[in-house]
C-alpha cells in the first residue's frame, strides 16, 4: 500500500515536470472524480479477491447496471425513481449466480464468472436489439455522476467516499469482513471454525455484482447514456487497482486504502498516458507490463502482511 501511494506521488511529480497543471486542485479533483467510477467497481472486485476468488464478469455486469437503469427510466416517473436501485439489483442478481456457482457448485470462480459474463452479454444484446430501449440516463443518475456538492466537491467522489467508508466498515468491523479475510487466508480453517463459508462467498459475489452494476449506473449518468461496451475497459483496471494496492491475488491480505491508492494510481496512469498522447496500443502495453512487474514484486514477498 505504501508502495502504491509512493507511486502516486512519483507519478504526480513526473506529471508536473510535463505540465504545471498536474498539481493544481482542479486537475486533482477532476482525476478523483474520474477515479470514483473505477473506485466503486474496484470495491466489489476487492472483496472477491480478498476471498481468493476472481470476478471476470465485470465488463458486462457494468453494462447491465448502466443499461438496465436507463431502461427503467423508460417506465415513466416510477421508473425514473427506481432506475438506480433497479440497475444495482440486476447486478446483484448476476452476482448471486456467480456466488452460487462458486460457493455451492464449487465451480472455479474464473470459469463461472466468464460464463455469467457471456450470459449477461447475451441478455443485453437481446435487450438492445429486441425492444429498442430507452438508453438515456435519469436526472438523478446524471446528478449523482456529474453534479457537484458543496465547495465544488464532485458528487461522484462523495459517492465513492460513502461506498468506500461502507467497505472499510464492512471489512474491518463486521463478522462478515472478518470471515472474508479468514476464508481468503485458509478456507479450510474458516470452515472448521464454524463459519458458514458458503453464505459468505455468496454474499461477497452478490456485493461485487451490485457494486459493478452501480459503477455502470454512474458511468451511464456520466455519459448521459448507456452503451454495450461500456464495461469492457474496466476489467483489467479494476483487478489491477486491487493488486497494485497491495492485496494478494491469492486472497486474505489487503486493505481498502491500498485499493484506493491503486485506483488513483491507475487513473493517473491513464490520465498521463492520454496527456502525453500515448496511443491506445501503448496504454495497453504499459498497463500489462506495470501489472506484471508489480505482481512479480508482491509475489516474491510471499510472507504475511
Amino acid at each position, binding site marked *: 500500500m505504501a508502495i502504491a501511494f509512493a507511486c502516486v506521488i512519483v507519478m504526480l511529480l513526473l506529471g508536473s515536470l510535463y505540465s504545471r497543471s498536474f498539481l493544481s486542485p482542479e486537475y486533482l479533483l477532476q482525476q478523483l472524480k474520474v477515479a470514483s467510477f473505477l473506485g466503486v467497481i474496484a470495491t466489489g472486485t476487492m472483496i472477491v479477491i480478498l476471498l481468493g476468488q476472481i470476478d471476470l464478469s465485470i465488463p458486462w455486469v457494468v453494462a447491465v447496471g448502466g443499461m438496465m437503469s436507463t431502461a427503467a427510466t423508460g417506465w415513466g416517473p416510477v421508473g425514473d425513481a427506481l432506475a438506480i436501485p433497479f440497475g444495482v439489483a440486476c447486478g446483484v442478481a448476476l452476482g448471486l449466480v456467480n456466488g452460487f456457482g462458486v460457493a455451492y457448485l464449487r465451480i472455479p470462480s474464473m470459469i463461472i464468472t466468464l460464463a455469467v459474463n457471456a450470459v449477461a452479454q447475451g441478455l443485453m444484446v437481446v435487450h438492445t436489439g429486441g425492444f429498442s430501449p430507452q438508453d438515456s440516463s435519469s436526472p438523478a443518475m446524471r446528478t449523482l455522476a456529474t453534479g457537484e456538492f458543496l465547495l465544488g466537491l464532485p458528487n461522484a467522489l462523495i459517492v465513492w467516499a460513502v461506498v468506500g467508508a461502507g467497505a472499510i466498515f464492512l471489512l474491518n*468491523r463486521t463478522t462478515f469482513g472478518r470471515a472474508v479475510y*479468514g476464508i481468503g*487466508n*485458509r478456507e479450510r*480453517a474458516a470452515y*472448521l*471454525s*464454524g463459519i458458514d463459508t458458503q453464505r459468505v462467498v455468496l454474499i461477497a459475489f452478490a456485493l461485487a455484482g451490485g457494486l459493478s452494476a452501480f459503477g455502470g449506473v454512474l458511468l451511464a449518468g456520466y455519459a448521459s447514456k448507456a452503451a454495450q461496451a461500456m464495461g469492457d475497459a474496466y476489467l483489467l483496471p479494476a483487478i489491477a487497482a486491487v493488486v497494485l494496492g497491495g492485496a494478494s491475488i491469492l486472497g*486474505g491480505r489487503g486493505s481498502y486504502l491500498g485499493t484506493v491508492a491503486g485506483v488513483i494510481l491507475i487513473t493517473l496512469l491513464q490520465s498521463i498516458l492520454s496527456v502525453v498522447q500515448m496511443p491506445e496500443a501503448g496504454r495497453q502495453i504499459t498497463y500489462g507490463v506495470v501489472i506484471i512487474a508489480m505482481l512479480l514484486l508482491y509475489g516474491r514477498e510471499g510472507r504475511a502482511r
Partner: protein
Amino acid sequence: MTRLEPTASPILRMEGVSKRYGGVRALANADLVVFAGRIHGVLGENGAGKSTLIKILSGVVAPDAGRIVLDRAEVAFDSPAAANRAGIVCIFQELSLVPDLSVADNIAISNPPHRFGLIDRRAQRRLAEEALERAGAPDIHPMALVKDLPLSRRQMVEIAKALARKPRVLILDEATSALTAADVAKVFVVLKRLRQEGLALLFISHRMHEIAELADESTVFRNGANVATYVAGTKTDNEVVEMMIGREYSHIFPPKPAVRAKGAAPLLEVRNLSWSDRLRDISFTAEAGEVVGLGGLDGQGQRELLLALFGVLRGLSGEIRVAGVPVSPSSPHAAKGKRIGMALIPEDRKTEGLMLPMSVRENLSFAALPRVSRGGVIDRGREQGLVGEMIDLLDIQTAGTNIPAGALSGGNQQKVVIAKWLMAEPRIILLNDPTRGIDVGTKQEIYMLLRRLADEGAAIVFYTTDYDELIGCCDRALVLYNGAIRRELAGAEITERALIASALNISSEEAAAGASA
C-alpha cells in the same frame, strides 16, 4: 539381543541419522543395516520414527545429520527421483499414483519406453503387464484408469510400479494395510520371490503376524532410535511389545477424580455410527466432566470419528445425541451452534486451526464471532476483553494481540487454537491429537486445562497418538482398529500394554499371559 551374522557386506547402511521437525525430534541417531536377499522388518509404535526413516531413505526429506551408505558409497538424495535412480524405491500409500492416467501409464511414468521419439504404447503395455504379473495382480487391466480402481487394487499398482523400476532396495511402508487378505497372501509370495532374486526389502507394518511371517530380521524403533534388532523367531510377540514400550515418562499429569456421579443422560452419546468403510458401528458415551480418549494406531478411523461428530462428513448412519436430544450437525457451523455446542481442535494447526497471517486477536475471536458481535458488527472492546482473558487463561506468550499468529512458537500457536474454541464456550470439546509437535511444558499446561474444563462440566473426546496421554489424562479410552472400537478401557485398565496390544489387534490376554510367564 541376538547378534546377526552378516553373510555379506550390507547393501544399505544408515549411520547416526537424525531429523528434527521444528523443535520436535523425529529421529535421533538412528542406525539401520539392510542386506540383499533378506526381508527386514521395521516395528515401532506411533511416532517412533518409522515414517521419518522411510522419508529420508526415499529422498522425500533430507536428514539433519548422519550418513547413508549404499553399496559402500555414501549417498544423499535430493528428490524421490534421485533415490529411485540409485535403486531405492519406496511403495507409498496411493500418493504417487496419478489418478487420471491409466495403470500402464502410471507404471511406466518415470521412464516410459520410447520408439521414434514417442512413447511406445505396446512396449509400455508389455512392461505394465509384466510388472503386474510380477506383483501378483495380472487381473488388473493395464488400460484401466487408476481413479476407477478400488483402493486395494491401487495398492497393487503401486507395487507393480515399484517393481518396474527394477529396485535393489524396496521399501514397503504399510503397503499391505489397504489390501484384502487374498491380496496380502499374493503379495507375500511375490515378496518372497523378490528376496530370492536378491533384492533387499524393508517391510514396515503394524501387523505383527505379517512381520513374523515375512521378516528374516527386524528392527524395533522407539523414541526416534533403533532399540533392538533381532532375528525372526527369536522373540515372542510379547517380547516385541515389551521392546516397543518403555517410552520416557516425561509428563506429569493432573490427578483424575476418583468416582463421579453419573448424570441422567450423557452429554454426548453416539449410537451405531458408520461412515463409508472407515467407521464401523461405533457406539460410546461421554459424560459431562469426563475425558474420553481415542487410541489405537494412526489412521484407524479416529479422525473420521471426530469429523463425523463435527458435521464434516456426509452420508453418516447411526445416531448422535447431545444431552439426550438427537442431533445431526450438517456443518461445523451447525455443530458450533448453541443447540449442540461442540468444538473441534483440528489436526493440523497450520492449515486447519489458524490463519497464520492474521493477527492473534483475529484468530482468537474467529470461532467466537457471534459472541463478540451484535447484529454482525464486532464490538471491539468486548473482543479485546475476551481475547485478553483467553491469553491470560492459557498463558499465551505473545508480543501483542496484533502480531500475526504465524509469528508465535508452535506451542503458543496450539494454545491459540485451543483458546479460540474455548472462547466459543463449547460444552463438548473434541481434540484431534492436540499435543503433536509441541514442547513438553505446553503439553503439561494442556493436560491441566483439559482436566479443568472437564471439572467445569465439559465432555471431552481426546484423540492422541501418545499412549502416555491416554493413560495419564483419560478417564476412559476407546481403542480403534480398522474403523471400529476394538476395546474400551476404563480407569486402571488403561495401561500401555493393554493399549498397544489392542491397537495391534492381538489379544491382550495373550500379551498378559506372556508377561506373567
